[in-house]
């Protein structure tokens, strides 16, 4: 069944692959970097979409996981560079595969701890508390001087991936794109699984789910942890893209941006985060080229989308959400 949304998704996936390749061979590496940014932010938002879109958990604190992933990459690379052991005599590393695993573990652990407390609440409480916990980690990163504190942490040379020269913009883009593809496939599998069905049912009618013997709290906690893992891996990629980690990756603006990406694209839709990230990054780039005051106009556009274009970009093109 090739619905309009499926066709749109295929088109988006192809565009995001083909355009950077064309840009690269026509000597415009800047646009490759822009596309890499889109892929990474998409992946972070795919993670949030698991919690927010499927589970209805409006987390205003996903920057915490994004930043933790980023710091995992930064800290491991710093130790590999300096040669100092990290903990228990373990060395740092420059291998992305190991960094990603550490980022996923750290992000998952943080999501577990935060989720254990925040998921006891719901609605506005949940929004505010996730925001508060992310802010706690933000202030910790600022006041802990060992890894740069407020100034952030540079990654002198981009970390390595076996068989790929990650220093070339296009190669690094393809790594990120592949990871985004894996993320989207996992999201789809998750959405269609029994577990995904239970998670979505818990969003639609918590009491009914509980009454058939499925504990919503536990389901949500698992979803929240997986969501944090996705976003953390994206954070590690983001740190490597910029070769820099700073507390700004943990800031509340970052959390807000991730939500914005999802809403712009379409909540709970497979490619919503991709459409949203593409729109957001291009808008930022385009408005930033026209006026120094681009945030003002971005705000106006966002306001317009919320008030008048519910369902986001994909909803606008592919029609009403099948999503209650």
């Amino acid at each position, binding site marked *: 069944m090739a619905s309009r949304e499926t066709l749109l998704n295929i088109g988006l996936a192809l565009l995001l692959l083909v355009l950077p390749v064309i840009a690269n061979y026509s000597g415009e590496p800047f646009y490759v970097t822009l596309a890499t940014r889109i892929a990474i932010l998409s992946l972070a938002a795919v993670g949030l979409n698991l919690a*927010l879109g499927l589970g209805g958990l*409006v987390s*205003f604190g996903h920057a915490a996981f994004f930043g933790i992933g980023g710091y995992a990459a930064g800290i491991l690379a710093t130790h590999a560079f300096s040669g100092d052991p990290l903990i228990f005599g373990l060395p740092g590393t420059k291998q992305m595969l190991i960094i990603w695993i550490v980022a996923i573990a750290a992000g998952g652990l943080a999501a577990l701890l935060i989720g254990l*407390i925040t998921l*006891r*609440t719901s*609605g*506005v*409480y949940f*929004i*505010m*508390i996730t*925001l*508060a*916990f992310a*802010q*706690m980690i933000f*202030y*910790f990163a*600022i*006041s*802990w*001087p*060992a890894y740069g504190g407020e100034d952030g942490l540079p990654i002198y040379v981009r970390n390595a991936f076996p068989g790929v020269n990650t220093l070339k913009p296009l190669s690094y883009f393809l790594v990120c794109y592949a990871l985004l593809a894996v993320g989207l496939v996992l999201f789809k599998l998750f959405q269609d699984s029994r577990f995904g069905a239970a998670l979505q049912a818990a969003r639609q009618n918590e009491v009914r789910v509980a009454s058939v013997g499925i504990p919503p709290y536990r389901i949500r906690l698992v979803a929240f942890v997986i969501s944090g893992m996705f976003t953390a891996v994206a954070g590690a990629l983001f740190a490597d893209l910029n070769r820099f980690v700073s507390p700004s990756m943990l800031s*509340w603006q970052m959390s*807000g941006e991730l*939500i*914005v990406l999802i*809403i712009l694209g379409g*909540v709970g839709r497979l490619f919503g985060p991709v459409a949203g990230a593409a729109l957001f990054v291009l808008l930022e780039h385009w408005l930033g080229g026209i006026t120094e*005051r681009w*945030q*003002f106009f*971005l*705000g*106006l556009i*966002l*306001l317009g989308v*919320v*008030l008048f274009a*519910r369902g986001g970009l994909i909803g606008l093109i592919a029609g009403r959400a099948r999503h209650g």
Partner: protein
Amino acid sequence: MQTALIIEQLLNGLQFGVMLFLMAAGLTLIFGVMGLINLAHGSLYMVGAFACAAVAAWTGSFWLGLIASLAAAAAAGAIVELVVIRRLYDRDHLDQVLATFALILIFSEGTRWVFGSFPLYLDIPALLSGTVPLPGGSRYQLYRLAIIGVGVAVAVGLFLLISKTRLGMRIRAGESDREMIGALGVDVATLYTLVFALGAALAGLAGAMVGAIQSVQVGMGEPVLILAFVVIVIGGIGSIRGALIGAILVGVTDTMGRFLLPQTLMLFMPPSQAAMIGGAIASMLIYLLMAVVLALKPRGLFPAQG
């Protein structure tokens, strides 16, 4: 000497708490009555500070600035309510978060447009610029005491407004059943605008008063906003009494934590390490406090009825 220092820090914590109360009271009132989560409340705080700084610089009078801050924040609040917020009452919280996030972008960049990127400075008025003696021999800034006084006055005023006046009766009625008071002939739309403007004015007042002890700059509102969220989560969303107690708890915990933790740790470890670890833990202390409160009482210390 040590006792004097502790008293001084306690007063600082109280002053911080009172300022948080002014923010939290508006937020919790708006949530209680309209069911709206307003991220742009920090922007109204900023508007108040900028209005006060600009008018004070222009007229030379802090007091005119203070009046201007109340008026500007209330007006900004009313306009925002009429144009944007009013369309959000029936939406889910996600839409409210996003729309008010967009408002932050607009307010922040708009303010930078008008006033430039450099911080403004606001002087403490001459009348309040002295110090008063504290028991134990040290002296304390009169201005900070005045902030505490204003906060207490606002708390009492709000309490009287809500429990004794007709407007307060309508606010309480609106909290428990908005359809019913509409059916009984109360103009709900105007009531909502009024409540929103009242909350905005309180935020503006807080911004103006704090503007004289810190610098007035774009982005000053959001850290305070997030702390105010912590306050109302601890106090129980929708409860003014909870906001007051939560604010003082947060203000005192934060200030005393930053003061006492490094000193306590210094008993066990070298000073530089104690300062680093103590500082890092102190910056997280209020969030840990919030986590503990939530683990024990998920709806806050004073959950609002309904």
